[in-house]
């Protein structure tokens, strides 16, 4: 067991961050549907918020997990759910939804455990 951690090196891999090219020949999404650009912007904004917390703050960890899921949704083309997960990350940071008491730690199994 070890204190929580997450590796974000794969984020760009699984959501193709920055990729915004329309698929040639594919139908165009409805005008009022959220777009990949909106998803990316919301994630970037929430990530900036999270980075304002100390690296070991539990709410930062939770927010980063939400943002990871946001990009998974984007990789699936579900930009509405991407926005929802980004919003959750922002709320997590703003309201400090998770806090550790003195001596507490969140135990998450590491990949090598």
């Amino acid at each position, binding site marked *: 067991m070890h204190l929580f951690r997450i590796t974000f090196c794969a984020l760009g891999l699984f959501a193709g961050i920055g990729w915004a090219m329309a*698929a040639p020949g594919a139908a165009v999404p409805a005008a009022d549907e959220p777009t990949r650009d909106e998803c990316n912007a919301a994630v970037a904004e929430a990530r900036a918020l999270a980075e304002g917390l100390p690296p070991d703050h539990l709410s930062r960890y939770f927010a980063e997990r939400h943002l990871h899921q946001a990009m998974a949704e984007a990789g699936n083309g579900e930009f509405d759910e991407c926005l929802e997960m980004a919003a959750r990350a922002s709320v997590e940071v703003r309201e400090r939804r998770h806090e550790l008491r003195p001596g507490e730690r969140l135990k998450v199994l590491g990949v090598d455990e």
Partner: protein
Amino acid sequence: MFPSSKTILLTAASASLALTQGAAAEGLGHNERRGNPYVAGDMHNHNTCTDGSVAAGYTIDRAVGRGTASAGGNNFDLDWFTLGNHGGSGNRDCRFSDTSANLPGQTTTTWSQTLGQTIDGITISSLKGTPNGTGTGAQMWRWQSIREIEYPTIVDRSAKYDKVLIEGLEWIAPGHEHVDVAVITGQHPRKSNGNADKMAEFEYRFDRADTDAIGPVIDAGGNQLWPGKDNVNNTGTAGHQKALTGVKWLQANYPLQSYIIPTHTERQGPFSATANKGYNIEHFRDFNNAGPTVAFGIESPGHFAEGGASGGSGSYTTNAVGGGTYGMSGVYTAKVGGLWDGLLGEGRNFFMYVSSDWHSRGAGGARDSFTTADFIPGEYTKLYVPNAGRFSSQHVIDGMRSGNSYSVNADLIGPDMVFRAKTRGDEWKTMGETLVVRPGEKITVEMELTVPNENNSPYSFDNPLLVPIGIKQPLNKPSLDHVDLITGQITGVVAPDAPNYAVANAAGTAGAAIVYNPSATIARQISAEQMQRGHRGDRDGVRLKFTTTFVAGTKPFYIRARGTNIPNGTPNVSDTAGNPLLDANNAQVSCTDPACPTHLETVNGVKKVTHDVQAYSNAWFYANPIFIRPEHSPKLLVETNGELARRLGQRADNDHDHDDHHHDHH
């Protein structure tokens, strides 16, 4: 005192409608049946082909495997499993789990990294159809991953497990929220052959997130295997019409081999004529009218551990119809007199189901015991369908269609529930069936159930929601407080041109105030203490039984059941009648036991009843209705649609016989 399990088995099996296509469906060995009258499954879950966190094969392993997974974490031993992943596309190679799952040797891998490689015996040479992204963003359309990744994975796991595995879909329906779908025609994974082409074709043709304009081709000239796709009408009212076309396509082609079950139906709010949102009652009516043997129900949301300090269980925000979940169910099914009761009040064959909607464990990795998002299939919720002898994928669909089905959270009850009614003699009718009565006659209703000794909760501290009322109830020990028998009058099918066919809907808690069937009521509430009690052995738990009576009137009605561990009037959890309150209220309660886990949300530094602790604290089961009709009154829609299923089954059997005869002469 109680019938043997074999007696119960006969009762349950007798209710299954249209057990057809036996030769086409695949079965399990008898050794796997374990003698239970019902078998547990899950039809809604995800993997890295779309937005899940683990590989397709890993999801199956955890859901249906036994004991402990090789890299750690419990398996959950489901009897049947439908891999029901989103439509659309995905850029991750779902033979690999995501890095965030913290599984040894597994890192996020995209199709761009693996094209041309043989992995797990599968080689993907190219991403087919309309090009969709580049580099690490290059996406595989779901029709391809259904055919070339998920179904072969199901074939592989079918050789490993003696379980029923089905390739399904969470359809992103045009104009609407999502829908669980499966088309089993052509799927023969236990024979190591077949394909999921019909499932894939449905996804390609009707999923609004699948905007591919090409699909599979049949020759070098690029001629399409599935021509004629509507790639335009994906939104609002036009989208709903396209969704109806999809329902009709299933009804016309696979009337007994498919289902469509809308899911987390309240989440996106009411239907919108110009966007892709939720459903109003008229849309469920449209579906059932267009697909009488395929569109027969509604799924209450999964995502049970997402509840935080301001709500969120079920992945519902305050904008959902109802403003959130109630006892972990959406308001359409949780509210007495709500939308589900409205549909039952028409006599429709419209039943309720629950599944996990497994994506990830949120803050935890796949092997951690805690979750702040979803449970692995079989861990928390189980969808029970009849154990029909040599169990097969066809029996999963037949069981669901029959209505002889119930759904259980936190293993509140086990796989051997009996819920039945009779008048004279010994002709019992169970869930989904119709009891024909004489006015004035006494109707006997009987329920038996087993409360298991334990569930899968990793927590043994006392239920924090019940501490304020002085009840000590360990979270890992299921406990039934009472069962509600809910009745409602049946007033007949509402015609599409009737003024009350469409009903105005509302987001938020305003949506919870809408009454669709004012006659629905908790007609009986039976406390566990009032029930007869027997023991099933140390391992299996406590067997409970009660019998009650109703007097038949001159109007048809239905009786459905639900049960819970929550007493009436539990502060922040239930009202004085026993109805679940908005689950966001649970977080008003503090979790003060020294064992309350670190991942719970806090308010002013105090842990609140949230996430998986909330889910295990607030446990419910739902049983589908038994219909009651006075003799000489018109048959209910549930009866006529059941008869339609039987006729279609007989016709299919005849066609099958004819085909066999035809082949014999060649």
